[in-house]
């Protein structure tokens, strides 16, 4: 046991940090894109407050198209775009953009369904009080949906962790990469087991944290 940690401890620690770094940065930026997009979908959908067939239809199709592409293919498919935006296609920097392109539309859909759960009556009540649409979106729609939003983001985070496993293909490292490189290619099964264990631990704690936060937000 002691021997294992001296040999591999640093590597696994570095991988964990890389995975968490990629996941949190990508999650943050994807949410900043996905939440407004989800809101826009809800507002522009037929019978929405700002119903607009073209905006809704267009946005919806784009999201569907991106979501049709598996991450491993998307990663290579948008290489030129990644180079243009990020200046590189390798390392953590190179994988962030594909992760965001992959996750933002997913989050947009999750946010859309969370926001659709909000009772239209409450929104109408606030409209009747002369409160602007902008304020209604933030203080009513998103506030009332916040518990579902947290659950949605939890699902998205776990999806992101899964996607980062493929980041190793462009040299961004991470836990998935370690499991593949060392566990599979170099046949060090213990390394694979330990990385899998760390991944399970991560996913479990993120899910329980999300559940607990959502429950708390629902009540208070």
């Amino acid at each position, binding site marked *: 046991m002691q021997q294992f940690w001296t040999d591999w401890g640093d590597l696994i620690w570095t991988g964990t940090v890389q995975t968490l770094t990629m996941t949190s940065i990508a999650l943050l930026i994807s949410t900043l894109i996905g939440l407004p997009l989800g809101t826009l979908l809800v507002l522009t959908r037929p019978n929405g407050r700002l119903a607009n067939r073209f905006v809704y239809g267009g946005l919806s199709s784009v999201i569907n198209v991106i979501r049709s592409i598996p991450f491993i293919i998307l990663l290579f498919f948008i290489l030129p775009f990644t180079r243009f935006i990020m200046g590189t296609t390798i390392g953590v920097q190179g994988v962030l953009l594909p992760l965001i392109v992959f996750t933002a539309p997913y989050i947009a859909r999750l946010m859309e369904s969370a926001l659709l759960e909000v009772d239209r009556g409450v929104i109408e*009540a*606030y*409209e*009747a*009080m*002369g*409160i*602007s649409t902008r304020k209604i979106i933030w203080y009513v729609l998103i506030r009332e949906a916040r*518990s579902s939003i947290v659950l949605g983001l939890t699902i998205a985070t776990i999806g992101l962790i899964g996607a980062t496993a493929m980041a190793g293909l462009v040299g961004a490292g991470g836990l998935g990469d370690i499991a593949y490189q060392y566990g599979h290619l170099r046949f060090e099964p213990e390394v694979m087991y330990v990385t899998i264990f760390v991944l399970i631990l991560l996913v479990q704690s993120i899910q329980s944290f999300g559940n607990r936060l959502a429950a708390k937000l629902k009540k208070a």
Partner: protein
Amino acid sequence: MIELKQITKEFKVNGDTITALDDVSLTIERGEIFGIIGRSGAGKSTLIRMINLLERPTSGVVEIDGQDITLLKKKGLSTLRQRIGMIFQHYNLLKTATVEENVAIPLRLEGLEKQVIRERVDRYLEIVGLSEHRNHYPEQLSGGQKQRVAIARALAHEPDILLSDEATSALDPETTESILELLLEINRELGLTIFLITHEMEVIERICDRVAVIDRGQIVEQGHVLDVFSNPSHETTQKFLKTNLDVPEEVVSELQTRGTLVHLSFIGSQTEQAVLAQLTKRFGILPNIIGGGIKKLKAGLVGNLLVHLDGDHDQTELAVRYLKTSGVHVREVSNHATVLDRLG
């Protein structure tokens, strides 16, 4: 104070045009409680939403204090809406906010000062009797209490007008009574003009000064509650009232085969005159009381009787005429045009 002029509202549903409101004109006076009664789908909800323009009329004018509000720009409309409170059948409270916050948040969004907000929250929670529940969440409250929070929220803007969209329809009779009592109190003590829609007779009877009956998008009858209810001229109104006497259909049709069945309404002091006894004395007719009761309307008492008149046909006609000249409202209960129609 509120004037609806020739309001028509059409909706397009799958290419078809549906007329929700058809040339509706109404005037609501300052300080009164005006009720609209109608079945579901009659256009009530659309009508009440014309007053704060949650729905815009296809044609027609909505005036408040002489100002055509359909011409208002965004900012003007928003200011106007702050003067008009609204409560709903399903309360429409924030589930994620406490009672106190439910009242305070809209005021904060309106940009009022903290001190003012605190005073108003205290004041209006006190008025609706929920000061002790201020830190509860809506989920922990009963339906009646939730409606009280909604009323406090509406009042906290200190509006001139309160719109009530079926506010008691989801409540049990006892709770309905207490909410109606609260609305009456608000009307009396704060001087609010209340415009309400309902499908419950009881609501109109208990608190309304004037009523309009809506059927398939049209106002078929309107006036003071006492007048409309003691002398309903439209079939829809009669149906709303008929359900109150609760005489089984079979009994009615059986009695109609022999003699005449009439519905009599007595207003206020007439309740004391022995007009029925006079029928026997003057016309030799034997009145048989089938059902009845006395109702307390906001404006006074109305007695209703369902009476079977057994006797000579011509004498019956004279008797009905006598009742009418005595100030009793008479309505023949029948499917066929008979005595009353001939009398005109």
